[in-house]
């Protein structure tokens, strides 16, 4: 596995940090690779912006921070505005469809969007939106082995929520698989065309 820098950002309560932990665990424990996760701490962390940095690689990760992310997951408009400019040219941008409007992105990136919160609410618990997002991430980036991520999801949530989170993962994964094959199905589809080279 080549070194990939990932940033996941949103606001407190969306499971931003847990998403990064799940993906880090999948890479380093269930897939035999290496992962280093750091989270941004600061006075703004509570109630406002929340962000995690994850570096995954086939060899030990030396530099612990993300400098130019290859993949970015944003779950709030504030996070989009703050972090999207640092995304690598040709990188992947994953957004929470109902919470982020992609605009003014002055570079070639692939944009994938998913209504993760809505899907989670349909499953009966808004809290599992991060597992939906992790499933979607797994499908569209193809960075990690899906079974490794499933194990990491099951391993990272309370036992009585394991089944629901795995279901959320599958919903997100299916949505992601469909997004890879079907044309963009969203209100601002023209943005998808504008920013995606596909």
């Amino acid at each position, binding site marked *: 596995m080549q070194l990939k820098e990932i940033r996941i950002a949103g606001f407190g309560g969306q499971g931003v940090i847990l998403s990064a932990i799940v993906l880090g665990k999948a890479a380093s424990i269930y897939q035999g690779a290496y992962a280093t996760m750091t989270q941004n701490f600061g006075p703004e962390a509570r109630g406002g912006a929340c962000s995690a940095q994850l570096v995954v690689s086939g060899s030990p990760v030396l*530099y612990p921070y993300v400098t130019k992310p290859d993949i970015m997951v944003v779950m709030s408009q504030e996070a989009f505005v703050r972090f999207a400019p640092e995304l690598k040219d040709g990188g992947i941008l994953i957004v929470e469809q109902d919470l982020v409007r992609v605009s003014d992105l002055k570079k070639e990136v692939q944009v994938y969007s998913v209504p993760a919160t809505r899907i989670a609410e349909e499953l009966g618990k808004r809290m599992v939106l991060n597992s939906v997002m992790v499933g979607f991430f797994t499908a569209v980036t193809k960075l990690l082995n899906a079974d490794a991520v499933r194990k990491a999801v099951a391993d990272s949530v309370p036992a009585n929520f394991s089944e629901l989170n795995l279901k959320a993962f599958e919903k997100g994964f299916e949505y992601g698989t469909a997004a890879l094959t079907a044309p963009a199905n969203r209100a601002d589809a023209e943005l998808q065309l504008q920013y995606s080279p596909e």
Partner: protein
Amino acid sequence: MKTGLQKADPRGVLTGVHFMDGDHACCEGALAAGSRFAAGYPITPSTEVVERFASRVPTVGGTFIQMEDELAASITLQGAVWGGAKAFTVTSGPGFSLMMEHIGYAAMTETPCVFVDVQRGGPSTGLPTLPAQADMMQAKWGSHGDYEIIALCPNSPQECFDLTIKAFNLAEEFRVPVMFMMDECVGHMSEKVVIPPADQIEVVPRRHTHKSIEDYLPYGANGDQVPEMAHAGEGYNFHVTGLTHDERGYPNMTLPVQDKLVRRLQSKIRDAADRIAMFEEEQLDGADVIVVSYGITSRVAQRAIEAARERGLRVGKLRLITAWPFPDKKIRELAAKTKAFVVPELNLGQMVGEVERAAAGQAKTFAVSHAGGGVHNPEDILKVIVEAAR
């Protein structure tokens, strides 16, 4: 005489493969090492260590006390040690400053214990949530008088686990306070941490006396400069004081007693420096430049080292796992064979002075300073390596 090793108590060992941060790993290391007492005054970025300890230790029969301040924390843990526990406290720069008085007390009374300092930017309250390595000299010289301590520098969550056990073991072996010098980056970074089964973890037990109550002398010589301990409530007579004391532990402020005591406090560590020293070495033979680093900076420097090698430079790496006692002998030997040392650290020049002193003019020394609040840009280290190689 080396204290006999024991296996870890399985109750405290969370055997398995985990994805956890350095602070949590440090806590698990303390539990695995047999620590059943901590006193602390939580402070960012070290809070997670005691937060976890406070929830974990009651399940294995131990105690955590949140104290009113760092002075209280750093002396309470010493009471626990004299009561028979393995104990530690956890802090960051501002709290570390307040603990200095009692670090000197632990050194003087030869109380085996561990002080964890998760370093953040300073001086004063500085940068609570951001890394630095600017307490390195304070760890060695922060309390008054002549004394020696041991200091270890982990560079990953795995090492936060492994070396915390080592820190407790060294504390027991030498009856000395051990400084565990983490930094915010290592403390808050999550990585895979493998915790082995308890029977694969070796712990050093207390040097408890084998003598009878009548024959026991609390600070009596027993051949290897480290006296044996007795615990409160066992019937042994002992006296613990920060005043200069004789073999019975009673104050005796005469010149011969002061000379003998303070020299022993120093030599029990210095004479064992080679045995205590731990390094990670890479391509030191034939190196024109050797990068000396520790903690998180060693990982950032590795990028610069690899980039320099790609340019055809012969660059070696010496990572200090033990910062104190400083490995004079190792640096002296390397200085005779290399052109220059490059020392990146998250401070404006602390351990670089030690490298320069030990090199004694045989090789040049270059600092790559950083005021803290982040880690180096590897490019900045690379530039100095290139300059040093000329």
